[in-house]
């Protein structure tokens, strides 16, 4: 008998072969039970499968190893942000820019237009499956979200004045975080507009409006123009924090198992 084996008369009761076999049987049964629960659980399988377009996007996701930097439901690399609910905050234009020219540490992948379309479709359908991160806030009204963010990123006097003008004048048509259909016209998301237009274009729109799209001009005096421009600049600067508040429901505690939408 080699040194790895123990003589029978020195065997401890617990460690007799039949006891060990019994122990392993119990442990394996526990494993099998938990495994059967996982594979018989229809909760996730009942979700609609990805469309063919989204599936192409998912294939691109694997091909370029996006998960090395980004996460889905918190799983993946930590160099970039979680993209589970990215479709809710990235416009197709922003996605186009990021996927062709890159941003920060993200390389320029040079995706074609078709590839961007399928990747966008994948992220949109992924966004519908649930929430990847717990949040304290939920479905805030635009001004409520602005005020919540302002607690941590205070506004200047000029910006506060701009906020008041937005509340009194602009809010009826323009929302924050999404476009708004006003009659036959589409009033664009103010954050996206402010981020996209340069200073001259913004000043022009604020002063003269866009009559062809239903936006009247001449609503603001020169002082108010500056205040609204300052407020829009603050919105752009804090767009990430605003986006997180504009897409959830009511304030909730730290969740146990389910993250509220």
């Amino acid at each position, binding site marked *: 008998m080699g040194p790895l084996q123990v003589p029978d008369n020195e065997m401890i009761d617990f460690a007799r072969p039949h006891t060990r076999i019994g122990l392993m049987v119990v*442990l394996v049964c526990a*494993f099998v*039970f938990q495994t059967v629960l*996982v594979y018989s659980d229809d909760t996730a399988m009942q979700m609609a499968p990805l469309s063919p377009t989204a599936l192409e996007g998912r294939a691109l996701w694997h091909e370029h190893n996006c998960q090395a930097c980004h*996460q889905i439901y918190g799983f993946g690399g930590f160099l970039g942000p979680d993209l589970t609910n990215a479709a809710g905050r990235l416009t197709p234009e922003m996605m186009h820019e990021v996927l062709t020219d890159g941003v920060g540490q993200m390389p320029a992948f040079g995706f074609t237009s078709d590839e961007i379309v399928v990747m966008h479709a994948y992220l949109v359908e992924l966004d519908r499956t649930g929430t990847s991160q717990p949040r304290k806030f939920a479905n805030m009204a635009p001004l409520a979200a602005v005020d919540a963010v302002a607690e941590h990123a205070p506004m200047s006097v000029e910006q506060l004045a701009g906020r008041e003008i937005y509340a009194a004048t602009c809010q009826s048509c323009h929302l924050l975080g999404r476009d708004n259909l006003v009659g036959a016209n589409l009033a664009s998301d103010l954050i996206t507009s402010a981020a996209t237009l340069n200073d001259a274009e913004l000043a022009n729109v604020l002063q003269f409006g866009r009559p062809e799209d239903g936006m009247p001009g001449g609503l603001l005096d020169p002082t108010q123009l500056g205040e609204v421009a300052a407020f829009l600049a603050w919105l752009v600067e804090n767009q990430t924090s605003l986006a997180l508040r504009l897409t959830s429901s009511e304030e909730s505690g730290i969740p146990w198992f389910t993250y509220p939408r």
Partner: protein
Amino acid sequence: MVHVPSLSAGDRVVLTQLRLAVGALALALVGGLIAVLHYIPPVATVLNLGGVHFAAFRPIHTIFAHAWIFGVNLAVIYHAIDHDSGGLSERALKRARLHTWLFIVAGFLAFATLIVGVTSGREYLGFIPLVSLLFLVGWIVFLINFFAHMRHGFWKRPVYVLMWAVGACYFTYTFIEGHAYLLPGLDARPVADLQVQWKSCGTLVGSMNFLVYGTLLYIGERMSGDSGYAQSRTAWWLFTVGCLNSFTNFAHHTYHLPQLEIIKWIAFVVSMLEIIIVLRVLWDINTMRRAPKRELLLDETRHWYEYDVVGTFLVSAKWWTLVLVFHAVLISIPPLNALIHGTHVVLGHGMGSEIGIDTMILLGAFAWLLTGWYPAQSLPRVNNRRTRWYAIGLNISAAILVSWLTLAGTVHGIARYNGLPHPLASWNAVMFPLVGTVFAVFFVGLMCRLAPLVFGVEARVAVDQTPPWER
């Protein structure tokens, strides 16, 4: 120079596994260094323009870090088979050569494909399925070797043999399960895919840990000469708790995914049982500190582990186990899990466990195996103040790394919950690469002292010395 006459064919198998492990470790360190530099934006821009992408080097780092862990474990297992279980037969030697070559080809293919950007895009198993197939075939050949030698009187063997057996078989299952994404129906359902993927990834790590714990108990038994612990009730109860955890607590990775609540509750309750392990390790550390000082092989006036580098590594692993198992218990509590999920806390825990627990134990095993092949005059290169300082530096830098990642991740999680940007993002861009580089420097320094020994075994001057395991 006289060739050492006492190297058996089994010894050569052990040496081969150790050498491959060192090679894998080198690739893991280089991959990790290049990857972490991407956290510095200007450096990332330059690297990206040069075609050196994070998406290639992160999987290289994780794959070859695991290869290091498996390599040393295989070396120890083959050592146990060769010296304590009747030796390796001719057929077993052929099988060992076969699986070694399969691993080498798989490793080379994995590296080559990842470098050029060909990947599966999966966590842990970032290589293409062909590599998986080669590795799996090699692993099954190893399994055949293992059970061919261990099956006789299997249920009477010490607990570490069962740990190795469970780890090896369990790994086979989880490795195959990790490729479930190849099934079309699953890939079209991302949430279901994540459920299965993280069942596989979590249990894959658990299976790897069993190999490591078996190695620890084996080395401990050989060093102390006390075969009682590996047959004791305590060892078997700890094995039971560990096994139950590995088999059922994987859902603590997926609390937030839509799935049956009972799966999550089982995972939560079983994860909390790890408190038993925390308490036991605390007890062991307390006992160790109260134990009478042992005479050191070289210097009778020192504490038994002061210049004993093997002891330094194993004691380090004990402390890391205490901290990281407690850490694991905390982050398995669902509300805390919700806060830190998807942050660097998870990275800190993963790296901490694989460095602090697994690698420390395996470095101890590595050093212990070396002291068996070299005559007494060469022992000082291993059991040496400088080597020990590298080991201490490694531990301190790893502790800083894990602490920083935990801090950065916790702050990020709380800010994220409150809808705020990550306040330490710019700090992390400096700290993570900085501390990671310091850690790598200590690791390279340590391996510069130990690794040449494993490549020079055959050429040492022969001195008649009985290896420690035959005393």
